[in-house]
C-alpha cells in the first residue's frame, strides 16, 4: 500500500515537471537579451539545418517573402545581397527564413527558391522553409523583411527593421540608416549594440494561420 502512495506521489511530480519544462520551452515573441529560440528547418537542398549547429557565431535571421514589395525593394536594389556578401565574408551566419504558409503569398518550392537565389545572386548561409510558421511565431516575426541578430553567446542582440526608411520606393534604400549593418559592426568589434530594437516595417508575414 505504501508503494502505491509513493507511486502516486512520484507520478504527480513527474507529470508536473514535464508540463513545466514544456511550458518554458515554448515562448512567443523574443526579447532583446533573451536566449534565441532553437529551431530546425529544411533548406533548399532538403537538408535540415538547426540554429544549434552555428553556436558561438553571430547569426542574422532575415524573414523574407519574395513577392512582398518591401523585400523586392531590398533585393532589386541589391541592398540585401550586399549585406549578405559583406557579413558572411566576415564570418557571420546569415539565415534567410521563408514563413509563408502553403497557398499563401511567397510560398516557394525548393526549386523555385533555388532559382530565386541564383537569379538574385543572393548569398545567405542558408535559405530555410518554415511553412508552419512555428519559427516565425517563436521569434514574433511580423513583417517581411524582419531582421533578428543573435550574438555569439546565443542571445538576441537586435530585432526589428532592416533600416530606417519604410518607403517602398527603391530609391529609399540609398541614404537610409541600416540598423542591421550598425549592429553587426558593433558585435564584430565586441561593442554593445546601440540601437537594439526598432519597429519592423514591411508586409505582414503570410502565416498559414
Amino acid at each position: 500500500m505504501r508503494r502505491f502512495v509513493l507511486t502516486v506521489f512520484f507520478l504527480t511530480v513527474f507529470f508536473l515537471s514535464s508540463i513545466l519544462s514544456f511550458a518554458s520551452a515554448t515562448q512567443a515573441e523574443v526579447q532583446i537579451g533573451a536566449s534565441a529560440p532553437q529551431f530546425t528547418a529544411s533548406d533548399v537542398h532538403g537538408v535540415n539545418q538547426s540554429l544549434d549547429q552555428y553556436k558561438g557565431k553571430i547569426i542574422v535571421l532575415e524573414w523574407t517573402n519574395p513577392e512582398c514589395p518591401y523585400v523586392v525593394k531590398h533585393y532589386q536594389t541589391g541592398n540585401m545581397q550586399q549585406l549578405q556578401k559583406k557579413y558572411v565574408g566576415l564570418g557571420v551566419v546569415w539565415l534567410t527564413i521563408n514563413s509563408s504558409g502553403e497557398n499563401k503569398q511567397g510560398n516557394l518550392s525548393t526549386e523555385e527558391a533555388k532559382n530565386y537565389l541564383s537569379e538574385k545572386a543572393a548569398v545567405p548561409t542558408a535559405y530555410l522553409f518554415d511553412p508552419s510558421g512555428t519559427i516565425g511565431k517563436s521569434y514574433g516575426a511580423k513583417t517581411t523583411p524582419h531582421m533578428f541578430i543573435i550574438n555569439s553567446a546565443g542571445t538576441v542582440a537586435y530585432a526589428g527593421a532592416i533600416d530606417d526608411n519604410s518607403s517602398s520606393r527603391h530609391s529609399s534604400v540609398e541614404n537610409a540608416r541600416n540598423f542591421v549593418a550598425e549592429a553587426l559592426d558593433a558585435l564584430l568589434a565586441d561593442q554593445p549594440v546601440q540601437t537594439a530594437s526598432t519597429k519592423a516595417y514591411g508586409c505582414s508575414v503570410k502565416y498559414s494561420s
Partner: protein
Amino acid sequence: MSATFFNRCIPERYRVMKQEQKNTHCFLLTAILLFSFVMGLAKETHALPSTEIQQPHVRAQLLSEHETLSPGVSEMFALRLIPEPSWHLYWKYSGDSGASPLLTWLINGQSVDKDVTWPLPERIQVGSFVNYGYRDEVLLLVELPIPQDARGEVTIGLDAEWLVCQEECIPGNGIFSLSLPVSTDKQIIPSKDAPLFEKFLRRVPTDGSDLSLHLSPVNTSSLRLTLSEPSELTESLIFIPGGEGVIQNNAPQLLTRTDSTAELILQRPKVEPFSSVFHGIILKTPPFQDGSMGKSISLQYPIADAGSALGDTNSTQKDTQYFVLILMSAFIGGLILNLMPCVFPVLAIKILGFVNKAGKKHSSIRAHGLAFGLGVLISFWVLAVLIRGIRHAGEALGWGFQLQNPSFVALLVLLMVAVALNLFGVFEFGASLQRISSQVDSADDERYLSSFLSGILATLLATPCTAPFMGSAIAYGIQVDLIRSLLVFSCLGLGLATPYVLLSLRPNLLAVLPKPGEWMITFKQLMAFPILLTALWLLWVFEQQSSPEALLWLLLASILLAFSLWMYGRFFPVTASRHKQRVGILLLVILISISGFIGLPQSEIRENETSSSLFSQYEATRDSYGLRWITYTEELMASLRYAETPVYVDFTAAWCVTCQVNKRLIFGSKPIRDLFQKKGVILVKADWTTEDPVITRALEMFDRLGVPLNVLYLPGDWDNPVVLPVVLTRGVVIEQLNKLPDKDS
C-alpha cells in the same frame, strides 16, 4: 545624379541626411521622371502630374478646399484616397505591419515640410495582426501657407506614396499638381469638394486633455484606462496607440462600464521598443460631449514593478482589499469542504487513526496531525503549480485564460453547470477512488511520513466531493499570477486541514462533532445555488463579449450538457458494472464534446466596437465571425447597384430560428467567408427583428411575407438577383459564389 536631386526634395523626417542643407530650388518632377526612367522601376511609371490617379485598388485625388487662394493665408488641401472594398490604407501608425502613406507637399515647386492631419483610423484585424488605417475613403489634410507675394496662379504639388493591403499589399504612388488662381479680394469661394473637407475635419481627433482619464496598472501585463464620463453610457471605447510600444496591438481590448466610468483593459507590449508615454487616440460611440468621435490623449506610462504583481497607489489598495477577501473566502471554502459527504466521515476516522498510531502520547498525535495537514497543504501547492503549468502550455498553444476570452468564459459556464448538477446529485463520479480510500486507511505505519502521504492522498480522495469548489478555485488560479494562485490554494488547503490539526491537538473534541447524516446531503444541494449564480454572471459577461446569438448557442450547449450528465447519472450510476460504466463514460465524453463544439464561439474575439460605422457613409456592424455587414437602406441598395460588385443581402430577425441556424451554418463556415473575401462580396444585413417598413417593402418585392430571405445580387445583372432557398446549405451558397468572377480579374 538625378538621385541626389530627388533626395533633396524629401523632407528630413523621411530620411537621414548627413549634410544639413536647406532646400533651395528643386527640379523634383524632372528628377523623378528621370529617376524612374533610369531605374525602370516596376509600377513606378508616371503620367504627367494630375489631380486624379487610378492605381491598383486605390483612387487618389488632390483636392483644394477653396476655388481661389488668398496670399499670406494658410489654405487647406488634401489627398483623397479611396480604397476598393475590402482593401485598406494605413494611418500614421500602421500597427503590427503595413506602412503609412508618405506625402511631400510643394508650393510652386518648393517643398514645404508640413505634417498631415490624419482623420480617425479604424482598428483592422488581418490574420493574427492588428493594423490601424482606413477601409473607406479618407482625406489626408494639410494646411499650406500661401506666399504673401503670390499673384496670378499658385501651383500646389504633391508627391505621395502609400501602401494598400487586403492580405497582400501593393505599394502605390503618384505625383499630383493643382494650379489655382490667387484672389486678393477677401472673398472665399469654397470648391465643390469643400463638403468633403468639412466631413473629414469633423473626423480629426480633438484634444483630449480635458478628459478625466486615469491610467493604472492591473498587473505586470495589463493596464486599465478609466474614463469618467458621468451619466453618459459609453457603447464602445477603443484605444488606438499613437506609436510602437504603447500597447500590444493584437490583444483584445475589454470594455467594462459602470454608471460613472468606462474602463478599458489593455495589454502592455511584450517586447521592446517600449514607449515611455501612453499616447494615442480614444474612439468613443456615442461621440464625446463636444461631438467628436475621437480624442488624442497622452498620459504618463505607469511603470510596473516587475517584482510584484500588484499595481500602484489607490487601485492597489482596492486590489489588495479584494484579494484579502478572496483569501478569506478560500479559507472558509476549505473549511466547508470538510462538511462534504465524502470528506466528513474521513475526519473522525483519520483522527482516530492518529490516536491509535500514537498510542496515548499527545505530542505524537499532534505531530501526526501536523504531518497530515502539511500533506494536504503540499498537495494544494502542487495543484497551484500544475495549473500554472497548464496555463503556460495553453498560452504557448495560443489559448487565452482570461475572462476577456469568450471561449474561456464559455468553458467556465459549462463547468459551473456541471458542478451545480453534481451538487444536486444528478450524477456522481469517482467511486473507484473511494474504494482505494478504505484500503489506504488500513495501511499501518508508525512513521509520520505515512501521515504526511495520507494527507496528500486524502486531498486526492476527497476530489469527488470537493471538485465543485476546486473547480472555482482552479478557474481563479488559472487567471492570476503564480504567487496569488499559491496564496489562494494555501488558504484553501489550510481550511481543509484546520479541523484535522485542531482535533489532533484536542482529540476529545471528536465527541462534539455532529454525526454524518441526511443534513449533509441538504447542505450539498444548497451549495449548488451559489454556483448557478456564478454561471449566470458568467453568461452575462459572455454576452457582453460576443453576441446575443452566441449566448443562445451557449445556453443550448448548457442544456445539452445537463442532459448528458443526467443521462449518465440515471443510466450509468457509479454502482453499475464496470463495463456499463465504461460505455457511460464514452457516451458522456462524446456528448460533452458536442456541447463544447456548440457552445464555444467560432471566432476568438469580437471587436468591442463597430468603428466602421464612423468611417463610411453607411452604418455597418461586425458579426461574431468577423464579417462586416452594412445596414440595409434603400439608398444603399441604389448606390450598390452601380458598384459593380456582388452583393449578398441577408433578411433576418432575432426571433427567427431558421435564420439563426442559417447564419451559423453559412457565416460560421470559413470556406464561405474566404469566398466572400475572394469575390469581393459586399454583405448587407436587413434586420427585421422590429418591424421596419423599408424591409417589409423589400420582402414584398420578392413576394415574401417573412424571413429568412437570402439574396445574391450579381454585378451587371442587378435586376435578376439569385434568391437562395429558405433553408440554406453550405453547398448551395458555395455553388452560387463560385459562379462569380474573382475580384481582381
